[in-house]
């Protein structure tokens, strides 16, 4: 976890950027990188790069950033980890490249010098970086395929700016805060702001798996170099034989975990009572990681009930010989932390509170790096969406394909059964949306439906936002090329939307606020490629069972059994309680499913107003 930023006054009419702006943006990200900081300016001072450092690999000052190549041509500012950097380094050294540090940052410089933009195809990791080429006077930005690391860009037509956080871009004081209707509409549809939009018209996300070049004529359109649907589509054409399922899954996941253990500091783990983090811990042990410290959040409200994860987590920690740290969180702490949570939240999100507390606990334990089981549900069909979305699409799709039937049925039901229509807005919309995968997915994941938005936002803003967001077209991009299986399609939709825009972003801001790098070995493009031939057979339940058995010492059976019922989390109730007190000014919403999330979303939005 680090913070990167930069300003490039590319247009010859623009004034050179000011150092105070570069520093204001950089230092807004102090929590991302408390261990060091640096800036670099091109000789004509038209391009400036900034960096805040959290030291994890090569703790020496030699590895400080922005890092300049030996001959002075390339300069890099980099946030993230390149997990295969040792292999790349060996390869570069074998052809005569000499290194002066043991960091992964230097590998980026040499790899770019050798391969140019094509370097991104060689990287395994989570990354966002910018490389300045002094000779071509050109900036290259890149972001990893899943979008684990954030990168925001702003271009006013004269000057290009970038940073790891939206709020940091704005902290420089030179970027407009004019609202982006697509971002606001997107947040209400999905519960998080869908990339590339943010709440602000002039700030955008560099999309995951994209590079962008900026030269004297300004930024070029971002170029995609990795789509999550690609390996899924390829894998479906080359399915794994049933007999190889277990071994191939174990090898692939263990390989990812080995890669993610790369660090010169201790690596801990977030341990819940579920399969994903339990299996990750088991495989850490298989990767010869001893004396792992595992952090679990427990809630006083649940003590002694079946909703309490801590006893099961303790059982897993004991099973794998980990040191277990249980951190109890109460409602009063949530209330105390709420202002800090909303402050740390870079863009509005209806989630992330749990991650905030577990990251806080990890920091209290002195950890800088922790693995998380995040991504297991997307990869191994853990969500109910893997059942619902294909079922709705199959069951209601053919009927919904009849033009106008959805709206007609909704009108009819609203008239005949107004109570049902109010309580179950999504059920009402089945015939309107279920004829396409993206529609069924939006029904499953959506916070509000497009048709509901005019009730809570200005209708003009909704119209404009929907025109710019094109939610279905954007969701459909996650399915290019077609993953060719039900599980594959939902996997692609969940990974490229919910995981990317919500879970990974929450992990970033909540971890960053506590100077903690959260690593997600189940969110790895190489792993996805290796598991893709297995994904079509990972029907709900199957994938998780395979993962539970992946460690040499399989997870205890009770973990898998419990996984099916899930755990309770009281944060929803806490949010609800706080919001009821705080939001009397907000228009009361109709009672409906997901009321807590909806009410919380309105309150979060107020914090960003």
């Amino acid at each position, binding site marked *: 976890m680090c913070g990167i930023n930069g300003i490039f006054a590319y*247009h*010859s*009419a623009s*004034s050179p950027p000011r150092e105070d702006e570069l520093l204001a943006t950089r230092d807004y990200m102090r929590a991302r990188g408390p261990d060091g900081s640096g800036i670099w300016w091109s000789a004509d001072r038209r391009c400036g790069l900034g960096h805040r450092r959290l030291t994890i690999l090569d703790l020496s000052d030699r590895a400080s950033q922005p890092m300049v190549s030996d001959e002075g041509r390339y300069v890099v500012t980099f946030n993230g980890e390149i997990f295969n950097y040792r292999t790349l380094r060996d390869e570069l050294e074998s052809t005569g490249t000499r290194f002066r540090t043991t960091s992964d940052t230097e590998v980026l410089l040499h790899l770019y010098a050798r391969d140019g933009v094509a370097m991104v195809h060689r990287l395994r990791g989570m990354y966002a970086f910018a490389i300045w080429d002094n000779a071509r006077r050109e900036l290259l930005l890149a972001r990893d395929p899943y979008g684990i690391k954030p990168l925001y860009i702003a271009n*006013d*037509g*004269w000057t290009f700016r970038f940073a790891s956080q939206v709020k940091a871009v704005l902290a420089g004081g030179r970027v*407009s805060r*004019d609202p982006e209707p697509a971002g606001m509409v997107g947040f209400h549809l999905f519960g998080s702001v869908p990339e590339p939009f943010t709440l602000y018209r002039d700030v955008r996300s560099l999309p995951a798996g994209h590079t962008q070049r900026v030269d004297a004529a300004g930024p070029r359109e971002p170029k995609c170099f990795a789509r999550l649907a690609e390996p899924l589509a390829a894998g479906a054409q080359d399915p794994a034989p049933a007999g190889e399922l277990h071994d191939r899954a174990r090898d692939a996941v263990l390989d990812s975990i080995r890669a993610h253990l790369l660090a010169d500091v201790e690596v801990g783990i977030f341990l819940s009572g579920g399969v994903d983090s339990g299996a990750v811990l088991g495989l850490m042990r298989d990767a010869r990681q001893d004396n792992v410290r595992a952090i679990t959040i427990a809630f006083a409200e649940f003590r002694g009930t079946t909703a309490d994860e801590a006893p099961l987590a303790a059982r897993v920690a004991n099973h794998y010989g980990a040191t277990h740290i249980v951190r109890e969180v109460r409602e009063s702490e949530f209330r105390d932390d709420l202002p800090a949570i909303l402050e740390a939240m870079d863009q509005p999100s209806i989630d992330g509170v749990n991650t905030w507390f577990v990251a806080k606990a990890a920091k209290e334990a002195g950890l800088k790096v922790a693995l998380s089981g995040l991504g297991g549900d997307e990869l191994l069909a853990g969500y109910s969406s893997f059942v619902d979305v294909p079922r709705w699409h199959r069951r209601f799709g053919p009927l919904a394909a009849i033009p106008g039937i959805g709206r007609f049925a909704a009108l009819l039901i609203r008239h005949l059964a107004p109570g049902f229509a109010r309580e179950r807005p999504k059920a009402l919309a089945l015939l309107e949306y279920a004829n396409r995968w993206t529609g069924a997915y939006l029904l499953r994941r959506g916070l509000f439906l497009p048709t509901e938005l005019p009730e809570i936002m200005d209708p003009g803003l909704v119209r404009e936002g929907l025109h710019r967001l094109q939610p279905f077209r954007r969701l459909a991009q996650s399915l290019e090329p077609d993953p060719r299986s039900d599980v594959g399609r939902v996997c692609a939709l969940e990974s490229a939307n919910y995981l990317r825009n919500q879970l990974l972003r929450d992990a970033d801001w909540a971890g960053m606020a506590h100077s903690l790098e959260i690593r997600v070995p189940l969110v790895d493009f190489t792993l996805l490629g290796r598991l893709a031939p297995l994904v079509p057979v990972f029907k709900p339940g199957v994938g998780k069972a395979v993962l539970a058995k992946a460690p040499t010492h399989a997870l205890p059976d009770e973990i898998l059994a419990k996984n099916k019922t899930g755990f309770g989390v009281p944060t929803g109730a806490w949010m609800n309680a706080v919001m009821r007190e705080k939001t009397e000014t907000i228009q009361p919403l109709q009672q409906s499913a997901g009321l807590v999330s909806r009410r919380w979303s309105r309150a979060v939005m107020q914090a960003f107003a």
Partner: protein
Amino acid sequence: MRHQNVLALVTDAYGGRGGIAQYNCDFLSALAGCGTVLSITVMPRHAPDPALPPARVRQAPPRRGRLSFTVMALVTALSRRVDLVFCGHLHLALVAASIAYLKGAKLIIQMHGVEAWRRPSRLRCAAIETADLVLCVSRHTRARVVGWADIPPERVMVLPNTIEDIFRPKDSLLRTKLAPESKRMLLTVGRMDSSERYKGHDRVIAALPAVIAKGHDLVYVVVGDGDDQRRLRNLAREVGVAERVRFLGRVGPERLADLYRATDLFVMPSTGEGFGIAFLEALASGTPALGLNVAGAADALGDGELGTLVSEDELAVAIDRLLSAPSRDPHALSESARAKFGRDAFGLRVCAALDRIRPTA
């Protein structure tokens, strides 16, 4: 690299009058100078004055009527090879986009100022969204376009106005006539249109008593025509500065250039500038310029590096301060303005924009 045949649809260009015509001439002449351009056919709606386009540029006779213009544009497009369509005004976007589509050509659309600040009709908006490149005269205009058009922001670039050669510092012949002896001279150049009223003549007049009270003996010269002059004269009378305000009406280019040179301070507290070419003309003539930090003026005044940007309530104080400040070297000021907005810089930008839509780019 392939040589390109360009079809330019414009309201006016060579032989036209006003800022948009000038911009189109500058753009097309620069485009003709890019190595990859083979020919440019310009189709204007208006061309009141005779003019001689440069090499590789041919201008068709003007077609005033919308229908005849559209028909001629289509006929011309269908009868020859077209690799690139340049649309010089938002209002021509639909026909330009149709031609680009029919011919499989690239499309560049130019946005000037206020016309692009509000979302155009749905059809026009859709036409603009098909453009390979949208050029805007200022960051402000660009921000507005990016705000209403569903188009990748990278396709919307800023190509600011450039400066005519006649605007250069030298001794003024008019100075003694307009502001003799110790009098200071303020100048605004812009239309006085009662339906617009954004140029800020009234703001200057209202500020004059406070500036005079600071001890400045001054005359305020206004260049331009328009039906709002009577109101402004009345305002000048009301605030007691009628004898200090001189309305000169429209003037020719040579006289205009001399007026810029004669002036101590060019002031145009406008709220609606797409770019504000008059600021550049003043600066290029070596005269300090003052504007409001609103819309395109920030670009023309180089974010305060070339001229002074203030808020509306600081206007009188700023005029006083600038009139009291030691005068800047006019040649240095002119060179600074030319370094940013001169013809060389403009030509490079046009070719860079063209390069951006090269098929291999």
